[in-house]
C-alpha cells in the first residue's frame, strides 16, 4: 500500500504533476538542440531548485532527463544533426526518411518505441534493481575493456559503403579521444604545451561540427532546390507496425537497460550497440539500413530511453551513478540533505518508489508531447534552405559555446565542421569518428587498469578472462563478431544455405 501511494504520488499531486510535465516538455527541446544537453540542464537546475523541497526538485529533473533523451532524435531525423550523442544512430536511418518526405512517420514511430523502451527500463528499475546492480557492479576493468572492443567493432555497422574508410574514421576518432591530460598518470598527450588542449577536445563540439556544420555546408550545394514536401498522414504508427517491431524493441531495450546500469557507460553507447544488434538480427528489412530502415530507428531509440531507467539502478541501490546525469542527481540529493547510498532504499523506500513513479509519468508525458505537434515540427524541413541553414549555423555555435562557456569549443566545432564537409565529399562516414571518441577513453583506461591490476602480466589477465563467466561471455561475443564478419564465414554460410536464400531473395526481388 505504501509502495502504491508513493508510486502514485507524482500523479496525484498537482504540483508534481505539473513539474514533471513541464520538465518533460522543456527536456524535449533541450534535447533537440545540439549542445544543450540534459547534463547541463540538470546541473543548472541544482542551483535553481536549491530552496525547494526535494520531491519537486527531483520531479523537474526527471522530466527534463526523460524528455531530453528522447528529444535528441528530433533534429537527428529532421536535419541530420543529432541533438545528443545518444541520437547519432537515429540520424543514420531517420534523415533518409525525412528526405523521402516521411519525417512525420519517422518521428511517430520513434516516439512510440521510445515510450516502450523507457517503460522497460523503468520496469527493470522497479522490479530487478538490486539484482541488476549486483550484476553491473561486478564488471571488472577487463570486462569494460572487452565491452569497449565490442563497441569498436561496431565500426563495421556504421561504415556504409567502404569499410576501409570506416576504419580510418574510427581510428581518427580514437586519436581525438586520446588528446588531453591522461587522468591515470596526469601526463599530457598530444597537448603540444597548449593549455586549452589539456582538458581534451570536447566530443560534443566534435559531434556538432561533424554533423551540424558539415550538414549545412553540404546543403549549400542545393541551396535553391525546393525542400522535400513532407507527408503528414500516418504519423501515429498503426498497432500492426508497432507489433512487428516489438520483438526487436524488447531485445534492444534490454541492451539499453544493462548498458545504462553499468557505471560509466550510458545511452550513447547503448544506442550504437542496439543499432548494430538490429543490423545483425534483421534479415530482410523493408528498406536497407542507412536508407531509411524503420529497424534502424527502433533499435537506438528504445535503447537510449531504456538506459534512463537503467542509469537509476546503481544510483538508487548503491548511490553509484549510472551516467553523467544521475551523477549530478546524486549531488542534488546530498544538497537536499539526503545521503544517497546503499541505505537509501532501506531507510527511505518512499524515495525509490517516488522516482519510479515520476519516471513512469515523465515517460507518458513524453509520449503525449511527442505525438502532438509533429505536424508543426516537420514544417521545419520545409523551410527554404536560405532560412534553415543560417539557423543551423547559429544553433551549432550557441550549442558549442554552451558546453563549457568557452570559445575554444566553438573553434573546434567549426574546424571539425569543415573537416566533416570534406570527409563527406570523399565518402567517409562520420558516425565512426564519434564512436571512436566515445570509446577511446573507455578502452584505453580499462585496458591499462586490467593489465596494471595483474602487474603487467598479460598471461594472468587472459587467465582472468577465461576463469570469470562474465568475462568469458564477453570475450566469446567479441570472437564471434569477428569471425562472423570474415569472408570465409560469409562464404560458408552462403554455401550452407544456398537453396533457402535464393528462394527468399526471389521472393523479395
Amino acid at each position: 500500500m505504501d509502495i502504491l501511494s508513493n508510486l502514485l504520488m507524482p500523479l496525484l499531486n498537482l504540483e508534481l504533476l505539473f513539474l514533471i510535465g513541464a520538465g518533460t516538455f522543456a527536456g524535449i527541446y533541450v534535447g533537440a538542440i545540439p549542445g544543450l544537453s540534459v547534463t547541463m540542464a540538470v546541473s543548472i537546475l541544482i542551483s535553481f531548485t536549491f530552496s525547494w523541497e526535494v520531491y519537486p526538485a527531483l520531479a523537474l529533473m526527471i522530466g527534463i532527463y526523460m524528455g531530453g533523451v528522447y528529444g535528441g532524435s528530433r533534429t537527428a531525423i529532421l536535419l541530420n544533426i543529432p541533438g545528443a550523442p545518444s541520437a547519432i544512430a537515429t540520424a543514420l536511418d531517420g534523415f533518409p526518411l525525412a528526405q523521402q518526405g516521411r519525417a512525420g512517420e519517422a518521428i511517430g514511430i520513434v516516439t512510440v518505441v521510445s515510450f516502450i523502451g523507457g517503460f522497460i527500463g523503468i520496469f527493470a528499475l522497479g522490479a530487478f534493481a538490486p539484482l541488476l546492480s549486483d550484476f553491473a557492479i561486478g564488471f571488472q576493468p577487463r570486462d569494460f575493456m572487452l565491452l569497449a572492443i565490442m563497441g569498436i567493432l561496431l565500426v563495421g555497422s556504421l561504415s556504409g559503403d567502404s569499410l576501409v574508410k570506416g576504419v580510418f574514421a574510427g581510428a581518427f576518432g580514437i586519436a581525438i579521444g586520446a588528446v588531453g591530460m591522461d587522468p591515470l598518470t596526469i601526463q599530457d598527450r598530444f597537448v603540444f604545451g597548449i593549455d586549452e588542449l589539456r582538458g581534451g577536445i570536447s566530443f560534443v563540439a566534435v559531434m556538432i561540427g561533424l554533423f551540424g556544420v558539415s550538414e549545412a555546408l553540404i546543403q549549400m550545394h542545393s541551396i535553391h532546390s525546393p525542400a522535400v514536401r513532407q507527408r503528414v498522414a500516418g504519423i501515429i504508427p498503426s498497432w500492426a507496425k508497432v507489433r512487428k517491431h516489438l520483438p526487436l524493441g524488447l531485445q534492444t531495450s534490454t541492451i539499453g537497460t544493462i548498458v545504462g546500469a553499468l557505471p560509466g557507460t550510458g545511452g550513447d553507447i547503448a544506442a550504437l550497440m542496439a543499432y548494430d544488434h538490429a543490423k545483425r538480427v534483421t534479415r530482410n528489412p523493408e528498406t536497407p539500413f542507412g536508407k531509411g530502415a524503420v529497424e534502424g530507428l527502433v533499435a537506438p531509440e528504445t535503447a537510449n530511453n531504456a538506459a534512463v531507467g537503467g542509469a537509476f539502478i546503481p544510483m538508487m541501490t548503491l548511490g553509484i551513478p549510472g551516467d553523467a546525469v544521475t551523477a549530478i542527481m546524486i549531488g542534488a540529493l546530498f544538497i537536499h540533505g539526503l545521503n544517497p547510498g546503499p541505505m537509501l532504499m532501506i531507510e527511505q523506500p518512499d524515495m525509490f518508489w517516488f522516482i519510479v513513479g515520476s519516471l513512469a509519468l515523465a515517460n507518458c508525458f513524453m509520449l503525449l508531447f511527442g505525438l502532438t505537434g509533429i505536424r508543426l515540427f516537420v514544417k521545419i524541413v520545409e523551410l527554404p534552405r536560405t532560412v534553415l541553414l543560417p539557423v543551423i549555423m547559429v544553433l551549432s555555435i550557441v550549442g558549442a559555446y554552451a558546453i563549457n562557456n568557452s570559445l575554444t569549443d566553438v573553434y573546434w566545432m567549426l574546424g571539425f565542421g569543415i573537416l566533416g564537409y570534406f570527409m563527406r565529399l570523399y565518402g567517409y562516414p562520420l558516425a565512426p569518428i564519434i564512436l571512436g571518441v566515445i570509446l577511446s577513453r573507455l578502452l584505453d583506461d580499462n585496458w591499462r587498469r586490467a593489465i596494471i591490476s595483474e602487474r603487467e602480466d598479460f598471461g594472468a589477465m587472459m587467465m582472468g578472462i577465461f576463469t570469470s563467466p562474465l568475462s568469458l561471455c564477453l570475450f566469446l561475443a567479441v570472437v564471434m563478431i569477428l569471425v562472423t564478419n570474415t569472408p570465409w564465414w560469409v562464404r560458408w554460410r552462403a554455401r550452407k544455405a544456398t537453396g533457402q536464400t535464393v528462394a527468399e531473395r526471389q521472393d523479395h526481388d
Partner: protein
Amino acid sequence: MRNIVCGAIVALGLAAAPALAEYPERDIQGIIQWGAGGSTDTVSRSVTPHAEDILGAKVILQNVTGGVGAIGLNQAERADADGYTLLFGAENPLLYKVMGLGQKDYSDFVPINIIARGIPILVARPDAPFDTFPEMVEYITANPGEIRFGSTGPGGLPSVVTAMINEKTPLDVTAVPYDGDGPALTALQGGAIDVMPAVLGAALEPVRAGNLKAIAIFDTEGVEQLPDTPAITDTNPEFADILPWGPFFGIFVKAGTPDDVVAKLTDAYGQAAQNPDFLSMMDGRGFRMLSLTGTEAQDFLDTWQSQTAWILWDGEIAKNSPEDFDIPRP
C-alpha cells in the same frame, strides 16, 4: 570653453560613479574547478545560496573542469581582480608546481574562506582478509604484490596517503588508477581492487551498509559517524607527526582584488558557512568544518603545501623538487 570643461567634469563624474558604487552591483561569476555532482561542486552549490542572501547579488556558478582543475584556475586567474570572479577549488592547485601541471597556484589568489577539510579513511572490500591496519600491514608483508590499492592518479588523495604509509612502513602493493574516488570505490565494491584510501564522505554510506569495510580513520582522532573505527594513531602512533592531513575546499579571488571587496566576500561566506542547513549537510557528508579566513587561511595553505609537496617528493611521486619553488621543508 567653460561648458566643455564642465561637461568633461560631469562626464568624468558619471564614468567614475560605477567605481564608487557599492560592491556587488552586478552578478558574480563562480568557477567550480571540478565537475557537477562531485564534492567540490556539492559544497560550493550548498554554501553559495546562503552567501547570495547576504551579498544581495546572484553568484552564477559554472563547472570549468579538466587538467586536474588547472583549466578552471587559469580561467579565474585571467579574469579581472575586481571580485566578480570567484574560484571554488580544492587542494589540488597547491601541488601543480611540484607535479608539473602548471605555474599558477593559490599564491596568485587571496583566500576568502577555507570552508572545510575532508578526513581520509582506509576502506577495504568486505571480504578482505584483514580488519585492522596492523593486520593489513602483516598480510601485505606476507603476500607482497597481491593487494591492489585504488588510486586516482599521482597527486590525488590516495597517492598522498599511500606515500605517507610507505614513509612509515614500506608496503609492496599494486596501485590501480581510476578517474576519481567515485569510480574507484565502485570498483572496490565490485572486488576489482582490495583497499582504497578515500575521503570519509565518499565511503561513509557503503561502509554503513556493509558493502565496504572500514580499516582505519587516517586522522589523529576517530569520527562520530563511525564510532567503531579506530583512528590510525590509536594503533600506529608513529603517524601522529604527519597528521592531521586532508583535502579541503576553499573559495578564492584573484590577488590584487580591492580590500573592501575581499572583506565583503569574506564576511558573506563566513556567515554562510555557519548556516545550520549547510552545517548539517557537511556533517552528513563527513567533512570537518574549518571556515578559516584571512591570515589563518593563508597559514593553513602554506603549511598544507609544504607538508604535502615534500611527502610527494620524498615518495618519488612529484616531478619537480619543492625547493625549486621555495616551498620550505616542514
